[in-house]
């Protein structure tokens, strides 16, 4: 009796305990709404979604990646002074602790890591094992090539800004390695080989969906890369620059009729000229890292003109920029879209104070309206989101690359074609007609200085200026001065080290493989 009740009283709790032991399965918890990679990549749509995610990061549609890149390229030059920042960029005086370049570095490598991950997941044998059909597998192959293109572009940005950045690949990610540092000259080779490898694997020029890269995008990046090869590698590649810009030109693109149509809310029509674009939509894409920044940023421009809300009073141009044009208004060169506010005589051409948003003209290049001047309804609660797509590559740049590369002695092109390319740009600028002779120049006027100025006129506020000035060796030297360069109003030369941005301190500290750029 005793033993039995003893056993009983002991057993009951024991049974309860045993019951709970089986609950050790409860230690396998999984989040409610998230997916494993196996789930995410079980369909072609899942692959596409992951690829588009890379495009989203690339376009700054949910970050400041491209906006920061844009500002590093422009605010460091004569094209923009920024009212509301600390002017380190304008005065070329940043230290090794520099927020904006740090952000580009980190978000750039984030984008690269995202691409590396996609490349791992789109390994053909892996894709096949996930039960995708043959046709779907081929589609994933295109996705993979496009992602490799995005990665190559991101690495080009890193090379241009930082020279010798962290070098992360699908291999370092797969092996869980801390990536090393790559020298500019080696990174150049890597980008070149990547682009050449994917060139045949991409969808044909002008055959892909709007907003996705194609063969022409690959050629365009190669052309830009070769044009600047000397900056990155100390050796010239102008012949290659001619070859690849020519490939783009020959792919059937043509200039749009009106330069002022280029950066409007309905510029997704500009498919004749645009090679690859970042896409924005005021209802669907909520970001402050896109073209709305360039539109709202222009100082003083009212809502009635920019098509959004009143200006953020960020960006003005130094007096060097209006000086490139015949007049301060579009009466002759239609690209001279300066916002002068002369009616109130409150805005000045000269910049006495970097912090005074009324010092310096701004421009009305980016406007969120339609070609016909009709407004675009803001379908959001902010009134300042944009529909203006951003052309990462457009034909005019390829024309100018061709011309410059010919002038710099590259072979495979000729001066008359170069002149004709430039005059198409001039004809459109002066007469809204690429074939017009108005504004055309003669072959004797076509020299490297002219090209640099023409690039400033044509590609103003499109993120090129710093790279151009470095290529012409005018960025840090006394060969060319502009207002507030080096922190003085008349401009002064600065240390050559400013051709590159510093490797961010956080990365230097976190990654033992990195060395700082010289003299930071």
């Amino acid at each position, binding site marked *: 009796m005793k033993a039995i009740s003893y056993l009983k009283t002991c057993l009951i709790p024991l049974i309860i305990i045993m019951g709970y032991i089986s609950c050790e399965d409860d230690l396998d918890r999984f989040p409610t709404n998230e997916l494993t990679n196996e789930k995410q990549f079980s369909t072609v749509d899942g692959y596409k*979604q992951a690829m588009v995610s890379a495009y989203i990061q690339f376009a700054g549609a949910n970050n400041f990646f491209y906006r920061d890149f844009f500002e590093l390229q422009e605010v460091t030059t004569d094209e923009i002074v920024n009212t509301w920042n600390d002017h380190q960029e304008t005065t070329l005086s940043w230290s090794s602790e520099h927020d904006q370049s740090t952000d580009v570095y980190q978000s750039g490598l984030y984008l690269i890591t995202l691409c590396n991950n996609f490349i791992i997941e789109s390994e053909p044998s892996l894709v096949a094992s996930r039960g995708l059909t043959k046709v779907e597998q081929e589609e994933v192959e295109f996705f993979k090539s496009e992602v490799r293109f995005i990665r190559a572009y991101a690495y080009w940005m890193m090379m241009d800004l930082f020279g010798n950045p962290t070098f992360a690949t699908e291999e370092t990610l797969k092996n869980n390695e801390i990536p090393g540092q790559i020298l500019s000259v080696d990174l150049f080779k890597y980008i070149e080989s990547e682009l050449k490898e994917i060139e045949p694997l991409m969808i044909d020029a002008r055959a892909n969906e709007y907003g996705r890269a194609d063969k022409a995008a690959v050629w365009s990046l190669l052309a830009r890369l070769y044009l600047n090869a000397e900056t990155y590698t100390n050796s010239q590649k102008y012949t290659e620059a001619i070859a690849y810009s020519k490939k783009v030109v020959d792919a059937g693109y043509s200039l749009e009729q009106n330069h002022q149509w280029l950066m409007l809310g309905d510029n997704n029509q500009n498919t004749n000229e645009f090679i690859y674009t970042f896409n924005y939509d005021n209802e669907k894409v909520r970001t402050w890292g896109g073209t709305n920044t360039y539109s709202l940023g222009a100082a003083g421009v009212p809502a009635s003109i920019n098509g959004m809300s009143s200006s953020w009073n960020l960006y003005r141009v130094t007096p060097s920029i209006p000086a490139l044009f015949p007049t301060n208004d579009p009466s002759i060169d239609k690209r001279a879209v300066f916002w002068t506010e002369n009616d109130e005589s409150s805005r000045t051409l000269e910049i006495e104070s970097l912090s005074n948003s009324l010092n310096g003209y701004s421009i009305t290049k980016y406007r969120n309206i339609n070609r016909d001047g009709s407004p675009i309804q803001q379908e959001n609660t902010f009134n300042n989101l944009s529909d203006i797509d951003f052309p990462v590559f457009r034909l005019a740049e390829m024309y100018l690359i061709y011309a410059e590369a010919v002038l710099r002695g590259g072979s495979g092109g000729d001066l008359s074609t170069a002149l004709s390319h430039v005059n198409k740009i001039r004809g459109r600028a002066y007469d809204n007609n690429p074939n017009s002779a108005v504004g055309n120049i003669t072959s004797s006027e076509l020299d490297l200085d002219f090209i640099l100025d023409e690039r400033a006129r044509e590609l103003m506020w499109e993120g090129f200026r710093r790279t151009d000035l470095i290529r012409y060796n005018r960025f840090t030297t006394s060969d060319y001065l502009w207002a507030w360069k080096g922190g003085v109003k008349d401009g002064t030369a600065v240390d050559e080290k400013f051709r590159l941005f510093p490797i961010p301190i956080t990365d230097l*500290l976190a990654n033992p493989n990195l060395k700082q750029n010289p003299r930071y």
Partner: protein
Amino acid sequence: MIYSERKNKNFLKDRIVLFVIANVLSIILLNAQSTRVQGIVTDNKTSEPLPGISIVLKGTTQGTISGFDGTFVIDSEIGSLLVFSYLGYKTKEIKVTSSTLKVTMNKSAESLDEIVLIGYGSTKKKDLTGSVTRVTEKDFQQGFVTNAEQLIANKIPGVQITPISGRPGAGSSFLIRGGASLGASNNPLFVIDGNPIGLADGPGILSALNPEDIASFSVLKDAAAAAIYGSRGSNGVILITTKKGRSDELKVFLSTKTSISQNFLTQSVLTGDQFRNVAQSAESVSGTSILNNLGAENTDWQDEIFQNAFTTETSFGISGGIKNLPYRLSLGYLDQDGTLKTGNFKRTTATLNVNPTLFEGHLKINLNLKGILQDQRIANNDAIYTATSFDPTQPVLDENSPFGGYWQYTDFADNPAVLRHYNPVGMLEQVQDRKKNLRSIGNLQLDYKFHFLPDLSVNLNTGYDIAESSWTYFAPADYFPANISNGGNSSGDPGSKTENVFLEATLNYTHEIKSIKSKVDALAGYSYNDFKTTNYFYPSFDVDGNLQAGSEPNFDFDIPQNTLISYFGRLIYTFDEKYILTGSIRTDGSSRFSENNRWGVFPSVSGAWKISEEPFLENSETISNLKLRLGYGVTGQQEGIGNYGYIPIYNLGEAYIQYPIGNGFVQGVYPTATDRNRKWEQSTTFNIGLDWGLFDNRISGSFEVYLKETEDLLNNVSIPSGTDFANNITKNIGSLENRGFEIKIDAAPIQSKNFTWNLGLNYGYNENEVTSLSEDNDSSVGLFSGRILVNTVGFQRNTFYLYKQVYDANGNPIEDQMADFNQDGTINEEDRYRSESAVPRHNIGFNTSFNYKKLTLNMAFHSNLGHYIFFKPNDNLASIYDGIFRGNVNTDYFDTQFTQSGNANQEFSDHYLQNASFLKMDNFSLNYNLGNIINSKNHSDLNLSASVQNVFILTAFDGGDPESPYNYGSNFGGNYTAPRTFSLGVNFNF
């Protein structure tokens, strides 16, 4: 009279029940040859019956426990000795002379027989081997306490309790012995009446309790004590018991308190006149026009946002027994206004405790139920910082303003999101942000002592912590920041649901072997804890009920969940009542780690030697208590690291970004950063403690020295770009050592009939050192927390890493000029140096009370020394001219005269590092006990009290409250600081 009648009636009933039970039991259980002794135990002073007295037949293991009315029945023999013992009473031995016994017991002067809770059990204070500090009602902070943790703030050495905000209901942060972790949680585990609360909530639970309900706190500080809680014990364990009812007496208490609170710390910023003056300099520095944008007012924005805040609290409780069913029921209602305008917190609590004992003490049942309704209107904290920076020349109200009459930067009316700087009074008065939370905590404990083997008992403890919250948010269409979105009117009901459950089962075996003077307590247990919350997501609407674009959530809800399963055991061996050895082991499995790293093992060993009971001290007049304790233990940590960090997963991107591709739109999906190898953070603690008492414990105290080594520290660290999908990840990064000692002294220098004086002093010293970092590199700077704190091997954790400011001949800082430490001609990060640590080294608490007849005066102080804060106010003219609004500056500008924006290095200057050591007078209270006002004997008392909290702060720090929380060591002066409170209270018990 009513009372005693009831008592008699109950007494009779009890007798009958007991008689029956006793008879039945004695037939079953006991040797029929013995004599049945019946009796009653009472207090010798009050003559109240004493329940729960342990009565043991000396030399045997036979015994019983007195009933609710003090009666007991035990079988013994005439002439044998019965040992009566009870917490707080002197143990008494009585010779059995007849079959009825009347025993009176004396309260012991010393507290060594106090029962102290340890994990999964309790022990007498004198038998403790680990570092456990107990604070009971009599030592609680006096005055009006709205949050339970304030009862014990600064009472325990090595335990820092700091209000996280002056916001009503905000609660406090806890840091025990400097904290074991860098990046994981430093919250201790809270166990309330045996119900372990999820650490994620942590101290939040305390603001949900009615302080009136709390009976005691036990704080387990060292690993020897806390290791029984394994992975949850790294930062110590705080065991809280609430008051229980006793069936022998009907008690009613009623208390009401009221207080008024004032914000007493503000930032010293420019007045309107000063601002207009300084703006002239800003104009000339910047070349921009500022003066013509200024107003003519002298608005003190900080004054405008704060108010005198009233608080009232009423508690009512009743305890007693219904047919031997002891119960306690209490209700509390708190209505507290914030000193920040419009903030309000209402808390209604109901607590029920039922703890019957059945089968002659063999089955103890303890049921605890708590219900809490919190209803608050949240005042936007951002208003505080905004008030320190808002243009003082502008008025609060502007009759021409279309924005509810509040002055605003109307140029930004069409894109206020860019401005992010709004009239702070409008932020408070125009927005209604409300949150309701209904919560219930309950557990049922069954403690069954086996009839056939009373040494063995089984304890089942199961309970829940469930909550449901809802929220509403309303901003009118003319609220400036929301004017372009037509205001906001959203709600979430339910907002979230929490369903935490646990089950614990333990087997306890206690056996005394007299022949070898040994006693063994063994425990084996199992514990299952599941923490589950469902968060619901809702779109936003404007005031007309239209959906706001882009606000649709990706998912309707999310259910974060984690589970912890544990097995544990403990053995306490006592030899000759002088030598005590305790060993415990626990293994925990956590769902937060991958299968390979899931289980952790946490052992501990500790011993105590009661030196004062050795023959050479036994009869000492001076030394009344001396005990040496040694302890070693391992605890773990898995809080503060997220639930699923080891699983590589993909998250859907924001719903408001649908990227246009071709003719369609695609939403993104992103992999998360993953540390597949994440494992337990483990702390090993060595503790030496000495408990002592002199002169019959008139002076007593303890001294402890400890060393705590934490390995595999979990910390959120910067990882090299390109290695994962984030810039930061939480991973095991290295190890940390905490060393320190603690002193506690309690003394009663004067104890006379009419006058007593008590004082208590505690002091804790802690220093720590980062001993290794797994990814240390050549630069040897270490790992950053934020931008100015660094963790370097060989240095204190979170050490300030700054430039050395250069000063001019007058001792004023020269703008952006830093010392070139390595003299290489450039100022770069290599010129930064390691300064003080952000973790204070010395914590001191002091409290004293004077009692003269019915009047008691209490005072409590605390002080931190070696306390450093990086306080960087706006001291630069750039705040005025360089930005889209004209921000006010701190009067520090008059010293710095800084004018430039974009000072790259000034942000990291040691000029801003201040020694913020302080002395605070936390509490000053007067109590007057009117005693028995209704004319029944001894059973009522009326207490009147008046108190002041946060009486003063002595400090050289000029950024406000040195204990305000700050991020990564930085403070910009926007904190909601704990107010000064004056209160009055009436407490009535009968």
